[in-house]
Structure formats: C-alpha cells, structure tokens
C-alpha cells in the first residue's frame, strides 16, 4: 500500500514538474517575443511589403506567410473573413517566410505577379492549388504555372520578372526580419505589433477583437 502511494505521488510530481516547466517556458517565450516585436518595430513592416485594405485602418495584421505551408492556406480565408466582417478597419501586411525549400521560387512568382497588379489573385490561386504544386511538401515552382492561367497574367513577363534582383532582395529582407523577430513557424501574426500569445485561431481572433475594440474608444 505504502509503495502504491509512493509511486502515485512520484508520478504526479513528475507530471506536475513537466506541466509547470511548460507553463513557465511558454510564458517566458511569449513575453520575449512581445518584447522582440516591441523593440524591432522597423522589422515588422517594410516599405516593400504588400498590403491589403485601407492604409489608415486602425488594426494592422502583419502575417508572415509561406505559400507552401498548409496552415497558412487554412488561415488565409480566416483573415479574409475577419477583414470582410470589419470593412475598412483591418489592414493586412504580407511578409514572406518561405521556410520550405523551393518555396522562395513561388514567392518570386508572387512578387512578379505583383508587378502586374495581380498579387492577391495570384496568392489565392497558389494557395488553392497548393497540394498540386507542392506534392509531399516539396514545392516545385514549375508546377505552379498552369494554376495561374485565367488570371490575365502575362506569364512570360512573370518568368522574366521573378529573376529580378529586387525580388531576391525582398525575400532576403523578409527572411532576415523573420529571423530578427524570431519567427520560426508559419503563419505568424502580429496584430498592431503584438504577437499571438500562443498559436491558434481563437488567439488571433481575440487579439484582433481587442485591437478593434481599443480603436473604437
């Protein structure tokens, strides 16, 4: 009997230590990333960063996105819904975080499409067809092209523009900013400069709602 109690107590103590360690570590991390975002405001939005929505919108969502990331694909309509539900009050800033190998080429296609004023339709088409051009999570830019047909893009022009040095610079700068802000997973959101306390739809919704509410005051 004594031994059973000893064992149960030891098991509970170990699990409690694990849970406590997790809690402490997570809260330290979220505090750190908030401070990081606070002290590196310039890294959050760049002059070159594409934006969607009114420039004077009170709420600004900065999203670090990898076109080959499945969760980014799942979150994209969520953000669009939030924007549609609060017209003219939310602005989306797109930052590239092509962490998948080969994903940077897809970002280059996006940047080239942007020159023709078709960044957002191209992004939507690319996210929608993600499974087709990134089989087994291996992005292959060659497979993207046929999913861009019908957008009215001059694809020949895109092929030329995507190799431009300023496109490479944009990607390099975004990746460097991701590193400075300790963005290691995508998507990562910053709402008016504040990172998500932990990742999840509810957390994003809460942060956006808070920002909307404080803007109304």
């Amino acid at each position: 009997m004594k031994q059973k109690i000893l064992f149960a107590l030891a098991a509970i103590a170990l699990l409690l230590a694990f849970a406590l360690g997790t809690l402490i570590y997570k809260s330290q991390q979220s505090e750190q990333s908030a401070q990081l975002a606070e002290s590196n405001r310039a890294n959050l939005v760049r002059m070159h960063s594409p934006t969607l929505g009114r420039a004077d919108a009170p709420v600004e969502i900065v999203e670090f996105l990898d076109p080959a990331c499945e969760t980014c694909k799942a979150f994209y309509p969520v953000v669009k819904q939030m924007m549609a539900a609060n017209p003219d009050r939310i602005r989306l800033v797109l930052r590239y975080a092509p962490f998948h190998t080969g994903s940077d080429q897809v970002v280059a296609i996006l940047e080239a499409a942007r020159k023709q004023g078709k960044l957002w339709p191209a992004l939507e088409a690319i996210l929608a067809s993600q499974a087709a051009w990134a089989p087994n999570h291996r992005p292959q830019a060659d497979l993207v092209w046929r999913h861009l047909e019908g957008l009215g893009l001059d694809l020949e022009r895109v092929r030329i523009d995507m190799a431009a040095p300023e496109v490479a610079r944009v990607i390099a700068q975004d990746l460097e900013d991701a590193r400075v802000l300790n963005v290691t997973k995508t998507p990562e959101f910053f709402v008016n400069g504040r990172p998500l306390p932990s990742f999840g739809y509810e957390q994003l919704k809460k942060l956006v709602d808070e920002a909307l509410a404080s803007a109304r005051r």
Partner: protein
Amino acid sequence: MSSETTAWYLIFTAWLLAAGSTLGALFFGEIVGVPTCVLCWYQRIFMFPLALLLPIGLFPFDRKVVRYALPLAAIGGLIALYHVLLVAGVVPETMQPCTQGVPCKEQVIVWFGFITIPLMAAIAFAAIVILLWVAYFRSAK
C-alpha cells in the same frame, strides 16, 4: 528491509530515472523545440518503454521485469555512449549516421560547460542498468 523490498525500491528508482528522462526529452523536443537528431531518436526508443515497462513489474512486484528491461537499458546506454564519444570528437565525424538537417554533433544545450543531453542520457542509462542488475541479484537471494 527484506531483500525483495530493497529490490522493489531499486527498480522504483530506475523507473524514476526513466520517467524523468522521458519527460525531459519530451520537454526539450516538444516544448523548447530542440531538434531531435537520429541518435537521440534511437536513445528515445530504448528509454521511453522503460517508463511504462518498469511500473508493470512493480505492481505486483516481479523481479523478472529486469530480464525484459535490462536489454533495453543496455542497448540505449551503448547508443548514448557512442553519442557522447561523437560529441567529444573521439569517434571521427565521417562515421556519424546523421541527416543533413540535424547534425548529432551539434549540441544545443550545454550546462556548466560539459553537461549535454547525450551525457545525461548515458548517465541515466548506466544508472538504470546498475540499479536493475543489483535488484535482480538482491531479490534472487
């Protein structure tokens, strides 16, 4: 204390080490996000079952659990020893069976200048082996 009770406490201590190591590995891997290299995975394969296997031998006490647990601990200990030697540079780098992504030689965590995760694993495995060994012969008498 009867020799069987002593053996029980020895195996219980071995379980404490195994469960602590298991939760520690999960903490570093899942919470902190330290990348898990190939050799670490092999050590996990031999450590994690001990956390479940040993309590089954504790209630009711069955010294035979040592027969099942000892090979796991011994092999895990050998892998950990190899890993420690690799980190120390005794085993040449060309021999390391690691993927490009996560080199086993790179140590993310170093405490007090010498305590690394493979060293902790090697010590835990060695202690488990000794505890189980002693427990087996204690309870045999």
